């Protein structure tokens, strides 16, 4: 064997451990991203034998075209609704179930499973269930509304309402996952901090939440916020199964538009431009959230 110093042998081991994965990542992620970035500046169509350099035309279209702009606005709206509501609701549920575990562990566990169900089930199947529930005339929800004399909204076919309906389903779908993360965060808060806070005068539940629970959940909240936001940006399955971006593009989102342009219209170059915009959005959001929130997060 070679006579290598201990340090270089360790370095070699590190390389052997991380190398294959790095290589695979390079081939499967970075190279495709470069190809997509390149295609976004061309007029390439699926199956075409030639392509032409068109500069930033595709990006200009995406921003100037009312349909492209609507996809961007709808996605931002969806993220703006789903992220805060999902985080707030899942935190409430987690605190409730965490407390409940003290007096009725089995009931708390059953409820946890119920909340987690939407995460474990396939979203496409669940979307079909939503479609039945929210059918404008024979859906359970509207039949109940009609029964008590309330107006029955067209949840998926009212253009002003459809994004909110989808956001509602998005919240429903992500609460369970976020709840599990918050429960894990709550479980590691040491009891003596609450005791100390009480000695220091934090007597109400509210005081204890702001002085102990919330700061201690900082890292978890940061993680939950980043995960929920990236997932919300990627909203696709519910759009594809429930509305197909309709009616009249009212529920078009970035990823659905990307799918439609690339795989239905065969406009690969335009779809590539959408992909890059989407990529930039997600990266920016993650970095900003990380920078802003990290300053306020106390890691213990």
């Amino acid at each position: 064997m070679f006579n290598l110093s201990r340090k270089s042998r360790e370095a070699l081991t590190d390389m052997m451990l991380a190398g294959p994965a790095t290589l695979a990542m390079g081939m499967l992620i970075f190279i495709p991203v470069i190809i997509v970035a390149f295609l976004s500046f061309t007029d390439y169509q699926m199956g075409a034998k030639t392509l032409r350099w068109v500069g930033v035309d595709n990006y200009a279209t995406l921003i100037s075209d009312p349909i492209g702009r609507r996809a961007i606005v709808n996605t931002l709206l969806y993220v703006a609704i789903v992220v805060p509501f999902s985080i707030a609701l899942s935190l409430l549920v987690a605190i409730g179930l965490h407390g409940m575990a003290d007096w009725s562990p089995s009931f708390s566990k059953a409820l946890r499973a119920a909340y987690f169900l939407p995460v474990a089930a396939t979203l496409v199947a669940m979307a079909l269930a939503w479609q039945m529930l929210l059918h404008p005339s024979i859906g359970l929800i509207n039949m109940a509304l009609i029964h008590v004399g309330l107006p029955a909204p067209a949840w998926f076919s009212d253009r002003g309402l459809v994004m909110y309906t989808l956001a509602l389903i998005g919240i429903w779908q992500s609460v369970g996952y976020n709840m599990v993360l918050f429960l894990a965060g709550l479980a590691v808060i040491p009891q003596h901090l609450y005791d100390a806070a009480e000695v220091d005068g934090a007597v109400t539940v509210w005081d204890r939440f702001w002085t102990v629970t919330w700061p201690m959940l900082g890292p978890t909240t940061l993680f939950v916020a980043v995960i929920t936001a990236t997932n919300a940006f990627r909203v696709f399955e519910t759009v594809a199964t429930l509305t197909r971006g309709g009616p009249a593009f009212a529920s078009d989102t970035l990823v659905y538009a990307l799918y439609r342009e690339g795989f239905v219209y065969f406009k690969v170059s335009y779809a590539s431009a959408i992909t890059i915009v989407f990529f930039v959005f997600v990266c920016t959001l993650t970095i900003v959230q990380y920078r802003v929130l990290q300053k306020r997060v106390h890691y213990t």
Partner: protein
Amino acid sequence: MNKAIFIAALGFALVTAQAQAADIRVHYAIPTIWSDTQEKLADVFMQKNPDIKVTIDGPAEGYADGVQRLLRESVAGNLPDVAYVGLNRWRALEARGITKPLDPFIGNPMDFEKAGFSAAIRSLGIYKGKQHALATSASTMVMYVNPDLVKQAGGSMENFPTTFDGIIQLAAKIDALGDSVEGVWIGRHDWRFQGVLGSHGGRPLNDDESDVTFDSDAGVAAATIYSRFLKEGGMPTYGQNDARQAFPAGTLGIFFESSSLLNKFTEAAGKNFKVNVLPTPVVVKDKSKAYFPTGGSAIVMLTDDAEKQSAVWRYMQFVTGPEGAKIIVENTGYAPTNTIVLSDDAYLGNFYASNQNARVAHAQVAAHAGPWYAYPGPEGVAVTDLIGATLVEISEGADPKTAIKALADTVRGKLGMK
């Protein structure tokens, strides 16, 4: 080894090799409708043509996926030899030079007509005078009617209105039956709109496809039907799926939808009510000017190899011939594309005797089948969604004339016309 035996063995090997000379690969889509039918077609064909072996590729989920896959396979150089594609999708393959023109195989068009390929059906696969595809299954837009609701609203199936005016009046009466009962619904979708347009004698494009023509008087009249369905017939703001659930549930009176869904609706309605199928009204005075865009599938030849081409042609003749048509109709619910099975009761006589609804739907295809216009150029598919969006606006109250004129201008811009 004895030389004579060796030569005999060699000869035998050659003969069997030749017997399996052609091995053709078939692509199809939508296994939920087609998988059993495809197996049957291949089995019966191979029984009759033992020298050809048919291999079926794993199916694509839908026609859009199917075309995508064919385009990818063409780039990679492993195209199948023959493919079933959507009647409105084969042009995407033709535009990229992937399909092979069939005219040299067809030979004399008169003989071909006698073999059951009518001009109307042939027109579904012709572009710029060349036959690129042969229709294998067809569907047009028909009226699905719930007779129970019609009766409750004071109408009857015997005196069912045959004009849009009459239908709108009846729809309003059905709509008034209750909060969750709706009178009429039609999809806000390019294909359905082309149907109403064709019923008025209009066409979406001019003959050389250099301009859109759906903003003609017929086009405005067709768009007005959408508007009147809303304003006079109380058409709800359903999505396509909502309507497909509401009709079999018995809460929608009249539903304009593809005849290919007949089996599905009949099954889903079950004992709820007896689904009735009626032809879509023809508005234009000269009935020969009316046409209905035809959905369904077509078969295209993809292989360059001369030997395989002749095997593929035999396969195509079989599946589009009366025997193939019989298998397709009995197993999928689509209308046949071969006229022999309609005129000769030996093929589908029993089937039609017990399927009055299918007879109505298939007669409409035979009388008025016309091409499902695909808009030319790279934006061709994208503009169909713009058309759908405008129909949504009209069926929510926008003025049909202004909306359809504005749409025509937008579409012209997108397609680079003018």
